[in-house]
C-alpha cells in the first residue's frame, strides 16, 4: 500500500483501531483510519468508531506494525495444537457421582 508519500496534501499513514467495549473486556479490532500522528489517530478513532459510547478505551497502532500469520500456512502453522486433544477437559473421564455433586454446587 502506498501510504508513505512525502509530498504535501497526500494520504496520511494508516492506523488500526482497537476498542474496549467496557472495563474488563478485551480490546477488539474496530477498523482503521488515516491520521497524521498518534494524537490525531486517537481523536479520529473516537469520532469514527465511538459516536454512540461504543468504547471506554481505544488503542491505535500504525498498520505497518501489524504482523499477521498467513492464511495459506494456517494448516502447518496451527498444526501443533491439532493432535493434543488432552489439552481439553472433554478428554478426561471422571466418576459420575463427582460430576453430579459439582453441578449441584453451582
Amino acid at each position, binding site marked *: 500500500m*502506498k501510504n508513505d508519500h512525502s509530498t504535501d496534501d497526500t*494520504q496520511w499513514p494508516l492506523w488500526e483501531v482497537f476498542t474496549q467495549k467496557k472495563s474488563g473486556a478485551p480490546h477488539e479490532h474496530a477498523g482503521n*483510519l488515516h491520521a497524521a*500522528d498518534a494524537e*490525531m489517530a486517537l481523536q479520529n478513532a473516537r469520532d469514527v468508531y465511538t459516536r454512540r459510547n461504543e468504547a471506554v478505551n481505544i488503542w491505535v497502532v500504525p498498520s505497518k506494525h501489524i504482523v499477521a500469520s498467513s*492464511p495459506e500456512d494456517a494448516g502447518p502453522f496451527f498444526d501443533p495444537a491439532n493432535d493434543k486433544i488432552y489439552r481439553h477437559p472433554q478428554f478426561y473421564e471422571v466418576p459420575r457421582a463427582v460430576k453430579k455433586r459439582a453441578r449441584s454446587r453451582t
Partner: protein
Amino acid sequence: MDEKQKLEHFQHKIDNGEKIEPKDWMPDRYRKQLIRMMSQHAHSEIVGMLPEGNWITRAPSLKRKLTLLAKVQDEAGHGLYIYSGTETLGVCRKDLIDQLLEGKAKYSSIFNYPTLSWADIGIIGWLVDGAAIVNQTMLARTSYGPYSRAMVRICKEESFHKKQGHEIVAKMADGTPEQQKMVQDALNRWWWPTLMMFGPHDSDSPNSAELMQWGIKLKSNDELRQSCIDRTVAEAHAMGLEIPDPDLEFNVETEHWEHGDIDWDEFWNVIKGNGPMNHERMKARRKAHDDGRWVREAAEAYARKKKLRSEKAS
C-alpha cells in the same frame, strides 16, 4: 494448490457461509467486483452528505438541527468505514478519492436529485434511507469479512436515520394542509428515484449472477426492490400519504404490491451524469476537498515537527 483447486476451495468456503478475509486467496474478479461495489458505496455515503447538509442551517428547530448534524456526521463515518474496508483489498484510499473528484467514479444516482423543501429531509430519512437499509441488511451478510463488518455497524446507525425521517414525515402528514401538501410533493418527487436505487431489473443486470454466486449479494435487485415497496406502502398508507404510482396494485396471491413501469431512460441518464444535480454535487465535493487542503497540510506539518522534536530530545 493450482488455480482450479484454489477456486474450488474458495467457492466451497462461500457456499458454507464462511467469510473471505483480506489475506485469503480470492479470484481477481471477486477482488475487482468488490473494489468497484465498495468504493461506489463509500462515495455514495460521502456525496450523500451534500443534499442533507444543504438544510442544516435551515432546520425548523434546534432539535431537528442537532439530529440532522448527527445524521450527516454518521454518513461521513459510513463513508470512512467502507473506504477502510475497500483498502483491505489492496487499493489506496487517495486513488479512490481522486477518482471521485475527477468524475471517474460512480455513486448512487439518488443523490443527484435536489432537496427542495424541508419535507425532503424527512423523505430522505424515511424513504431513501429505508431503501438503503433493505440493501445494507443484505450486505451485512456478504461474503467479504471487512465489508460485512462495516455493514453491521452501518445498519445499527441507519435505523436512527430512518426513524428520525419517519417522525418528520408523520408530523408533516398530520400537520397543516400546507405541510401535508409539502410532504406529499416530496414523496412524489423521491418515489421513483428511490425505486431506481436498487438498480436495473434482474434481466438487465449483467453483474448480478456472478455477485450472487460469490455471496457478495444474497438477493437480486428486484427482490430487494419488492421488499422495500411492500414495507413502504404500508407505512405511507398509515400516514395518509399517497404513492405516486397509478398502477400500484396489491396482488392477493403473492401478497406483494406490484408497481408500474420504472422510467429506466431517466435512470441511465442520471448514471451517465446528466441528472439535475450531478454537476452541482461534484462541484461542491471538489470545493470541500480544496478548501480543506490547508488543514491537511497543517496537520502533516505539525506531525512532522513533533516527530522531529521527539527525535532531537532522545
